[in-house]
């Protein structure tokens, strides 16, 4: 046996002995994925190298950092920042733009009172933000940094998602138990759908034909048929007691990942059969959830353990934890440049 082969065997044995990361997840790591994690109590954003599984930078944003999204090209990270009072609009309330490479704040964009979650148009030129106190959803032109429209939605709007085909913006409203369907081009509300109680987040399937909505108090995931504007089914998660918040759909549309805040677990839902495939223990109070580009890795922001969980999407197992700031809320993942 050659020295080279013996060394390879030793390396493989070492991997088996420590229960290390599966090979396919390792290959995902080699893609140099960077997670941007908002921390609502420490008012900052942790930048996590998912390869090294460590925080490589912390960016102060000057307020309560919650919703976070990456631009379609992955070059800019947008963070919803607000002050301590949901009913007072102040200079703190803004969408902060961060250059993903330099990790510097490049813009602070007015976005109405108390922006909590946001979505980006497919061309990356507009931001859609939910203004919780005002009961509106605001569309902002990023280039000119100005509000171009505001639509009345339900009370306590929170979750926002833009459909991949560019046609729709869906906004959940926690008190009204509604999802408002906004035409992305005209900014008009074309319909409203009644869903389970306290809807928090919404995500589209890649073909834009389905939308998935979590209901925190209802403890469920609701599937909406976008074309018919109707609820197809509502799937209870964690026996209705998991308080689901974050939701993300895999790039191929086959799986829906839901962060159950109270249960401390992630539900993996078969999108076609609308049934739970697996539940994955993660940190405490996972809210934000994001799927890495390529789909091999899923990350949750765990608010009560001040860390993120890194999940291997194929094995559906947690493969690591990384401590971040205080009360992590949301997460967005881009490839390093």
């Amino acid at each position, binding site marked *: 046996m050659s020295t080279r082969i013996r060394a390879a065997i030793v390396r493989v044995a070492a991997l088996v002995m420590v229960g290390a990361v599966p090979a396919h997840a390792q290959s995902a790591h080699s893609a140099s994925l960077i997670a941007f994690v908002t921390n609502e109590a420490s008012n900052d954003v942790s930048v996590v190298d998912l390869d090294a599984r460590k925080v490589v930078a912390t960016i102060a944003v000057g307020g309560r950092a919650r919703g976070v999204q990456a631009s379609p090209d992955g070059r800019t990270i947008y963070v919803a920042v607000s002050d301590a009072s949901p009913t007072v609009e102040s200079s703190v309330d803004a969408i902060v733009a961060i250059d993903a490479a330099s990790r510097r704040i490049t813009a602070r964009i007015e976005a109405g009172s108390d922006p909590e979650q946001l979505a980006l148009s497919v061309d990356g030129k507009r931001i859609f933000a939910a203004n919780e106190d005002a009961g509106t959803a605001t569309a902002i032109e990023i280039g000119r940094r100005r509000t171009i429209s505001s639509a009345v939605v*339900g009370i306590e709007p929170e979750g926002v998602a833009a459909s991949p085909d560019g046609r729709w913006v869906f906004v959940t409203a926690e*008190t*009204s138990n509604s999802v408002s369907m906004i035409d992305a081009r005209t900014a008009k509300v074309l319909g409203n759908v009644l869903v389970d*109680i306290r809807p928090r987040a919404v995500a589209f399937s890649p073909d834009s034909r389905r939308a998935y909505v979590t209901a925190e108090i*209802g403890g469920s995931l609701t599937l909406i048929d976008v074309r018919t504007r109707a609820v197809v089914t509502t799937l209870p998660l964690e026996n209705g007691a998991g308080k689901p918040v974050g939701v993300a759909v895999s790039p191929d549309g086959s799986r829906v990942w839901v962060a159950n805040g109270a249960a401390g677990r992630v539900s993996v839902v078969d999108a076609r059969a609308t049934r739970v495939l697996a539940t994955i223990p993660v940190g405490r109070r996972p809210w934000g959830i994001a799927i890495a580009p390529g789909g091999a890795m899923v990350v949750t922001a765990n608010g009560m353990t001040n860390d993120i969980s890194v999940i291997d999407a194929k094995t559906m197992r947690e493969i690591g934890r990384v401590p971040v700031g205080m009360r992590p809320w949301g997460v967005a993942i881009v490839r390093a440049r």
Partner: protein
Amino acid sequence: MPLIPLAYLVAALLAPPAADTLRLTLVVDDTTRQRSLVHGAVLGVEEAAHTGALFGVVVQLRVATAANSSGAARAYHQSAGSPPTSIAIVAGPADVCAGLGAAAAHDSTIVFDAGCAPSWSPRPANVFSLVSLPTASTGDDSTHLELWHWTLDRFGAEQLNQRYARRFGERMDSPAWAGWAAVKIALDLALHAHAAGAARLRRQLDAPRQQFDGQKGRPLYFAPGTRRLVQPLYRVAGSGDAARVVAEVAP
């Protein structure tokens, strides 16, 4: 001059003309302790009008005061019209509640008890209670139970407290929550029933898995046997600015 206006009508003007109308009647005795309940109901109907407009439902609230049983029945009948009352909400002494309850039972109208005296008994089968505070002493005189508290801050409680404080310049207390929740539950029923008539709302109330959100972090529902709202309560210590919730009492 009465503390509460004899009639207080709020209508959702933005709703489409062909909309269903959820017509609510609130009858209370004319005392200071009902003021926050009325305020809560007014906030509730303003928010219900907002939500209702999204789904083509108009929400109206009429508030009336009554000093006794016959006054309550008269107030209920005076509020009758077209469309008829969908749900009646009542709070006050037992005779006021009994008068309203009997009048509404005659029309099979649902009644929400948002703060009736525990001595109101027997209660007709059309009465559902949002107030589930136990009357027996817990043996701990330093604390007391509340339906709601202005210091609650989770699951939308902070936002609700701030909306109320901004609207009325005062802290949201238990009667205010009961008034707000009565209206919200009424609208939730109408939206799920796709109708605002009393009969359809009653069927929806009896539907299995019909749950409501009261910004308390748990789904609320009416117990089939007692028709009381099953909900978390809050054990509160201290008073005034020093008051604080020391424990949530699970339903």
